[in-house]
């Protein structure tokens, strides 16, 4: 169990994060689906809930495993259960993040940033998306920037900033015209709606924030 002032993230907290993910995606399933129905094909909520419920089923077998192994298992589970675009995207995020976490039972704040950065680079190259195209990247890029440690900051404080930045990023997608994914077929008609992928990225980070803030 880690304290709020901790400057690193341990494997136990990572497992709690992933358990929170399953809860949050099941709870927000209809909300994500409604966002997707407006500009996509109404499957994002069900897909994320299915994927992270499957991840939850694997967590007991991951006790005492290193964070790299945990991330790799999450990646393969998401890739094989989510489908749609979000499966390969979030799957690639965890797969690339696993590299910097191999053999590690804790990540320092710097390592957390490195791991997040590697995951995000993987996700962006799989999706060929950049900021401003109305995708999950619009939430994740500012979230990564805000995660970088400031002074003698704690993981909890850095995550608070990161989640706030992700929220802002997700909100910024409302006026955007989508340039990637199924929403792009709507052209101008995609403007005025938030991006469901950016919304699910915020939930992912909020689940981590919750795991860090409410230990055990």
């Amino acid at each position: 169990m880690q304290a709020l002032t901790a400057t690193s993230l341990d494997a136990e907290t990572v497992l709690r994060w992933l358990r929170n993910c399953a809860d949050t995606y099941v709870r927000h399933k209809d909300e994500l689906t409604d966002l997707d129905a407006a500009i996509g094909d109404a499957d994002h909520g069900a897909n994320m809930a299915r994927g992270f419920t499957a991840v939850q089923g694997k967590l007991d077998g991951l006790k005492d495993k290193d964070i790299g192994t945990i991330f790799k298992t999450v990646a393969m589970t998401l890739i094989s259960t989510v489908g749609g675009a979000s499966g390969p995207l979030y799957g690639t995020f965890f797969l690339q993040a696993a590299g910097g976490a191999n053999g590690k039972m804790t990540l320092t704040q710097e390592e957390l940033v490195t791991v997040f950065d590697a995951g995000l680079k993987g996700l962006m190259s799989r999706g060929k998306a950049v900021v401003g195209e109305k995708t999950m990247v619009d939430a994740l890029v500012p979230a990564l920037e805000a995660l970088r440690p400031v002074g003698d900051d704690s993981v909890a404080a850095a995550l608070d900033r990161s989640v706030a930045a992700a929220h802002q990023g997700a909100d910024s997608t409302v006026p955007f015209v989508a340039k990637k994914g199924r929403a792009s077929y709507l052209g101008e008609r995609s403007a005025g709606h938030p991006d469901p992928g950016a919304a699910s990225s915020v939930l992912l980070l909020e689940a981590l924030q919750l795991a860090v803030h409410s230990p055990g």
Partner: protein
Amino acid sequence: MKKLINSPENVVTEALHGFAAAHPDLVKVQFDPTFIYRADAPVKNKVAVISGGGSGHEPMHGGFVGKGMLDAACPGAVFTSPTPDQMLAATKAVDGGKGTLHIVKNYTGDVMNFELAAEMARSEGLQVESVVIDDDVAVKDSTWTAGRRGVGATILAEKICGAAAEAGRSLAEVRDLCKKVNAQGRSMGMALTSCTVPHVGKPTFSLPEDEMEVGVGIHGEPGRKRMKLRPADEIVEMLMEPILSDLPFRSGDEVLLFVNGLGGTPLLELYVVYRKAAELAQKAGLKISRNFVGSYITSLEMAGTSITLLKLDARLIELWDAPVHTAALRWGV
């Protein structure tokens, strides 16, 4: 929601069990990872042809598995791309020693999942080529979108590539044929109603009684333009104009004219559409050498139609006419 189902969660699985039970002479169905494959797979010394996509488009793709067409099809959840483990398992199951072609519709999820599957298959020493189908002229600006969607030309490519594979062509030849069909095919669709995804329980969009969506895809997503409903002939003109003005049709060309129903439109109306589409094609100087009318790429119970024109040559005609024996298409056998 009023549907002939037991529960939204089990729709796809139960339908697959039914499909397997109905066509044991043609296909087998494997679960977890899920794919439909030819009962006689793997066919030795034949290039294997695989496709896949979300469920809800039946008979595409499972209905086209069998001799002369697909070796396997990977169904995802309703309107959701299948996952790479499905394509990988299907590729291994049907590989006959001459490699496998993946025919992929251009939707972000499908492309990414097939991309991952091809990477995994190659890392296991399998020979895989992929062709992405993007024949939908409704998507104008492909620089600022995910590009043209894969619609009607997909099953024409599946039929033609399946016949070429059956005739013993190499993987590179079958791949090139697939690219050719994609390059010479153009489609455009419209919807009169939305559709209801079972696990959502309500229509994906709402369309007033007197309006239609023009330029729709096949996932219940809204189209490019919403407008007042017009008579069938005017709608067909609206669909044919962008198809004909796009490359590569010229006066004197031989074509295949495919009028597709989106699931909720009766055949009676599809022939009204065919009548006008054929008239317009002939007026443009095209010779309709082959035609295809029916609901083959559907969007659940959506009412509407899509029109596809494929430019033909003697070789493509021969492959189109070659025997096919699947649940949804059967001739020459």
